[in-house]
């Protein structure tokens, strides 16, 4: 409901806020603010709509000026939008973050071990802990990488892991994005916007910094550079200005002080990669690539690709250039392989998983498939190779026709689908139509793996801005919030 004009001096946090049957990040079930939110709560209680809207406008304008937009695919025309930003920060207590951080570190280490194993001895398959069919039949499994040693044995230099909380507040890992996870530029920009708009709040809260992320990323990239006795040259390889994440590519390149290149700017000669500069060719040591494996090298992968550089794979095999992430990491973010991550943690690390997986049914298994088809109205069905919220069915919110269409797709290609129970994602007060409402959120921390594993505190909190929607992806009408991890 839009508030009448006479009520602009009303506080934005009124008695009307409903916690609902969900875990609310800010409020207990009885409506009392949680301890770590109390200062923010008091602040919001004094803030009128008028003041709040003023601050919001200021923040919006600064985003627009910086060109922070993204593209929505699947619409009639390419649409550039401002990524909606919500000014109410999400706050995570220190101990809770410590727990998450340990869990994420454990997970990324196990996934990296898995990648090293499936591209070498394939022990986990020999020991029948993961079916061979699932690994070798994965669309992003790269047989060309078998037997190839990558620098420091690290495959997943950058991982974006999506975390959600159920109605009791328990954290779950929803997926591990190990190809080219995006969104980190929003995390950094959100913090900038918040510091400008709510400087007063930062003074009252001890918020752990995240501004060093670009430096940490650069350190990670440099740590895998081949040693040729000179300062390594790192470049960011983008598919180009029409890519939905182009803003992020140019933003990160600028922040790291590295060159942003397209495939046509690179040339491979005698097993080495060079970038064309105005003064001639300069050898490249590390490529932070935001292009899928398929498109990296038309000589070795998709022959029709114009995005990559011919010969790049040979240069990579010879160890003359490092790629981040390594080629072939996609097999680890396959949604059917996801079901086996807890098993990987036990198998490679001999530990129990710290973070929970969401129970997952694999349509490729007959029993699971029967269960999925009988419960299409209750489950979330996901296509194993898609990301960004595409190719997904949210059973309880779908129409009969949509469910039937998915039934046919599952039966036609069971390996391509998994299903999970619908998780009632936690909610967070979010400013919608002049008042605070509970909107569903998730959290994507970015895990860097170089000389050691580094996670800047927090990550990107995405929020579903469509009423009742559980889909938080930016491409599906989601927005984001700043995420504050508090000092102890």
């Amino acid at each position, binding site marked *: 409901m839009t508030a009448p004009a006479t009520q602009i001096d009303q506080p934005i946090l009124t008695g009307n806020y409903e916690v609902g049957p969900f875990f609310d990040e800010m409020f207990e079930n009885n409506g009392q603010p949680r301890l770590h939110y109390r200062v923010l709560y008091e602040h919001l209680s004094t803030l009128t709509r008028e003041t709040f809207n003023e601050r919001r406008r200021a923040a919006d304008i600064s985003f627009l000026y910086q060109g922070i937009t993204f593209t929505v695919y699947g619409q009639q025309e390419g649409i550039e939008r401002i990524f909606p930003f919500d000014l109410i920060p999400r706050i995570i207590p220190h101990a809770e973050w410590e727990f998450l951080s340990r869990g994420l570190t454990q997970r990324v280490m196990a996934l990296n071990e898995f990648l090293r194993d499936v591209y070498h001895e*394939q022990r986990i*398959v*020999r020991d029948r802990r993961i079916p*061979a*069919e699932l690994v*070798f*039949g994965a669309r992003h499994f790269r*047989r*060309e*990488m*078998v*037997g*190839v040693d990558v620098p420091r044995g690290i495959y997943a230099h950058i991982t974006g892991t999506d975390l959600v909380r159920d109605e009791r507040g328990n954290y779950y890992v929803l997926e591990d994005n190990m190809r080219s996870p995006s969104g980190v530029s929003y995390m950094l920009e959100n913090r900038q916007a918040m510091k400008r708009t709510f400087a007063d709040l930062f003074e009252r809260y001890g918020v752990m910094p995240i501004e060093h992320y670009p430096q940490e990323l650069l350190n990670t990239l440099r740590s895998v550079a081949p040693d040729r006795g000179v300062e390594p040259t790192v470049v960011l390889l983008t598919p180009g200005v029409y890519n939905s994440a182009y803003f992020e590519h140019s933003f990160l390149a600028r922040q790291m002080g590295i060159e942003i290149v397209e495939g046509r700017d690179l*040339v*491979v*000669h*005698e*097993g080495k990669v060079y970038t064309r500069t105005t003064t001639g060719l300069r050898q490249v040591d590390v490529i932070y690539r935001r292009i899928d494996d398929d498109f990296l090298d*038309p*000589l*070795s992968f998709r*022959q029709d690709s114009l995005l990559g550089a*011919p*010969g790049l794979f*040979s240069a990579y*095999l*010879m160890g003359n250039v490092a790629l981040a992430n390594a080629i072939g990491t996609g097999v680890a973010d396959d949604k059917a392989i996801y079901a086996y991550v807890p098993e990987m943690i036990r198998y490679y690390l001999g530990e129990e998983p710290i973070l929970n997986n969401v129970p997952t049914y694999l349509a490729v298994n007959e029993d699971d498939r029967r269960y999925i088809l009988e419960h299409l109205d209750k489950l979330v069905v996901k296509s194993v190779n898609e990301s960004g919220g595409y190719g997904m069915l949210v059973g309880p919110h779908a129409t009969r026709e949509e469910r039937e269409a998915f039934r046919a797709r599952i039966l036609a290609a069971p390996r391509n689908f998994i299903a999970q129970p619908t998780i009632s994602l936690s909610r967070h007060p979010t400013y919608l139509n002049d008042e605070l409402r509970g909107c569903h959120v998730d959290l994507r921390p970015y895990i860097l793996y170089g000389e050691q594993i580094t996670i800047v505190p927090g990550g990107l909190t995405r929020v579903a801005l469509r009423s009742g929607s559980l889909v938080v992806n930016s491409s599906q009408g989601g927005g984001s919030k700043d995420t504050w991890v508090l000092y102890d």
Partner: protein
Amino acid sequence: MRLFIEHLTTLSYDAPINEAHTEVRLKPADAGGQRCLSFKLLTEPVKAHVLAYIDHFGNDVRYFDWLQPHQRLSIAVTSEVLTAPLFDPGAGELTPLEEYDYCHPTAYAPADEAICRFAGPHILPDDPLGTARTLSEAVFRSIKYERGATDVKTTADDVIRLGRGVCQDFAHLLIACCRCQGIPARYVSGYLYDPKFFGDTAATHAWVDVFIAGHGWISLDPTHNCEQNERYVRVAVGRDYADVPPTRGVFKGNAKETLEVRVVIRAL
């Protein structure tokens, strides 16, 4: 048998091209009892700096680039090889990936009804080796060797329909039949020494390895209905032809490519 092989590939373009990158799989393998005694690769008119790596099937790959504009490139390969009187089946186990790859259908060797119908009458229960041999003979008897009836894109089910083909087609059909019976099978590219053929591409050949538990690899040639012998020179193996083309390249420029190949093979 000691064989000397000259393999000359000429790539011509009807307009200048540049930034050409080429991969070559032409080095005789050190496998199955065969030894490559010498190998030389020279490019003309410019001597490219040639690099080498081993692909995940164990094949030797030579790679080079030529960035400057050009309209012709020739690749002259000479090798000397000592073949084995009998193919050595090798060690007794497949890796999990080989087991998967050599049992699953591919674009050239699909697993459809036509393949299963063709293979059906030749299956010997509980005898994979016998089945593979019978299938090889069935392919030999059913398909007529004929040049020009098929092309580089022809798949195993096309071959059944056409009833004609060349060695590549015979090999793909046998591979498809074995795989649909759960027998791991792989494509072998190489040469066949036959003094009757001389001076053209007739000496390049393709045949099939099948893996039989307890035996190892058995090498069958469905084009000639025999097993690999000392007149065969193995070069590369893969799931099908797509994994082992003798040359593969990309270039920049709007031009039509013409490929010319001449192979000479002599007994020493």
